[in-house]
């Protein structure tokens, strides 16, 4: 029950016994190698954006390369690879919570109005949300719909976006 005190001190490879801080210096070639990798990946990601493999495909490739680059920066430039595990946990938990935030929020925005054809993805004209219905071009309820004929004139200054589709 009482052994876990200051647990991080022990896995910390470079703490000297007298408590002085002793740095952990990486060889120069590690840095130059990392730098070269990052430059190379930058070129690759720009080049890949010129190759059309579908919007989703391009997005996945771009994000994949960005993630690799970011991991390299975090692990080597930011010394996470040699750092306390706890710092890595902190960093990863940030990404985890970000994923939760984006993921659950999108469970709303991507699935709104599933049951309602009229709601889905239809921006409303704020000044007159039901203009389309009232002018009679669209979505006249079926009892009286047959009467709405071709002579219907468009509404004044019809700025209404692609009005609401018919429900029936």
């Amino acid at each position, binding site marked *: 029950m009482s052994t*876990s005190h200051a647990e991080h001190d022990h896995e910390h490879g470079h703490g000297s016994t007298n408590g002085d801080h002793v740095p952990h210096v990486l060889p120069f070639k590690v840095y130059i190698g990392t730098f070269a990798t990052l430059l190379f990946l930058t070129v690759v990601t720009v080049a890949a954006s010129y190759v059309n493999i579908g919007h989703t495909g391009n997005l996945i490739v771009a994000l994949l390369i960005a993630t690799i680059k970011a991991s390299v920066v975090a692990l080597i430039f930011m010394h996470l690879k040699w750092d306390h595990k706890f710092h890595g946990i902190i960093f990863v938990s940030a990404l985890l919570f970000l994923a939760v935030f984006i993921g659950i929020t999108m469970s*709303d925005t991507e699935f709104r109005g599933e049951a309602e054809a009229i709601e889905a993805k239809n921006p409303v004209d704020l000044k007159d949300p039901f203009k389309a219905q009232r002018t009679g071009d669209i979505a006249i309820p079926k009892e009286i719909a047959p009467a709405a004929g071709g002579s219907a004139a468009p509404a004044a200054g019809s700025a209404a976006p692609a009005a609401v589709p018919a429900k029936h």
Partner: protein
Amino acid sequence: MANTATVDELGHSPEVQGKNYLNQTAGVWSWLTTVDHKRIGIMYLVTVLVGFGLGGIFALLVRLELLTAKKTIMDATQYNQAFTLHGAAMVFLFIIPSIPASLGNFFLPLMIGAKDVAFPKLNLLSLYLFWIGAVFMLAAIVTGGVDTGWTFYVPYASGVSTTSVISATFGVFVMGFSSILTGLNFIVTLHKLRAPGMSWYRMPLFLWSLYATSIIQVLATPVLGITLLLLIFERAFHIGIFDPTLGGDPVLFQHFFWFYSHPAVYIMILPGMGVATEILTTHSKRRVFGYKAIAFSSVAIALVSFLVWGHHMFVSGQSELSSAIFSFLTFFVAIPSGVKMFNWLGTLWGGSIKFTVPMLYGIAFLFLFGIGGLTGLFLGTLSVDLHLHDTYFVVAHFHYVMMGSTAIAFFGGLHHWWPKMTGKMYDEKLARVGFALTFIGFNWTFFTQFILGTRGMPRRYYNYLDQFQPLHAFSTYGSWVLGTGFLITFICLARSLKSGAPAPANPWDSTTLEWQTQSPPITENFEKAPIVTLDAYERPAEETA
């Protein structure tokens, strides 16, 4: 019973006789430039009490206005500003910083046997940021008020309201940084500065709750920052992200806002739970029942709190899928809260309960949190929320949690640690009167509102149906009792500063480290760094025998 051998019975060894953190140095400047966590804690305490007073005055005005169904003392514009400022002051100036920043700052290092928090200067900076934010909020009051509700929902707050929304939101934005820095400081302190022998499982449970709170502060507050920044830019430059006329999404704002503000509810309640734990165990002389369960339930609440924000949005127009997911996850916050409740009762079982003033607050906390927590089940149940959402039921529910639980725990903690902080004992009789009026007045005011809510009374209404008038008036009378209770409590505490008897080092016979130094403590907290050999609530063998 002392965990450390260096402190004598009275807590005053010859070397430190008469010296303490209060009289070490003198003058306003010495306070404004201090890096002593205790002084910073005291300054926070004074600030949040002022915030509480401010919010309280607005609360009484709101209740007074609602005495009659039409105009009583103010017009609709003033009423809307009054309830907005009541909410904003109570949430941002009082509850969020109340326990962590004042009691937490003061006692966290003491309880782990450290000399200070990990970053003392950062601690002072966070206090200054808090003040700066508060100034912006007060500036908003002076320059036209705010009438958006404390939630700042768009498009009303971004486009329609003509009040000082930018000043108020910027104030909250700055206070957010203060909150982040405090949380960050606490996490590092708990990781790095525990005294020798003070393992994680030997920490007082108040610290576990502060640790969980800090996690939320660090992870959630930045999202509030970006939300408010976007709101400010929306209002000032019409960037359109939340503006439906420009293709933006007002419901998205609610996601952003509640991603912070729901976890923030746990920033408010978790420390209160921690304080209650300390009070219940100390004043019943009983070791905490289910230490690990209480500790882990704090962390569990913190983590689950990030997954449930959408239960504020069941009728907002979010997708049905989201609502279902959020409702399901919401119920799981009830589990760790329930576990705590059971373990608190387990702690009282087989104890030796003394009804001191802090203990009265502790027991009141159990009662009020019981109601506050259980009524949450109504709101988490999807179909029932259809009826209860945005009615007085919700108002009553969150007042039971925020005020009935957190504020009561805060005042309980204040009475519990007052002797340690000030070195003075207060008048027990007067404190009991204050407590009794607060407790009665609180239930009187807010239980009534459950009835109003289920009967369909919507919140934030200036004019209301005549049929609700008797209940509203009843609730208003209760608020006067409640206000009187707090007034008496304040008078009692203020009087003790002047004429209270000197406090012994450990008046409650507590086992935790903060009581093992003198009252009030010296600037360095302990004469000699303590070495911990027992669990937090464990008494030495000769004493229990």
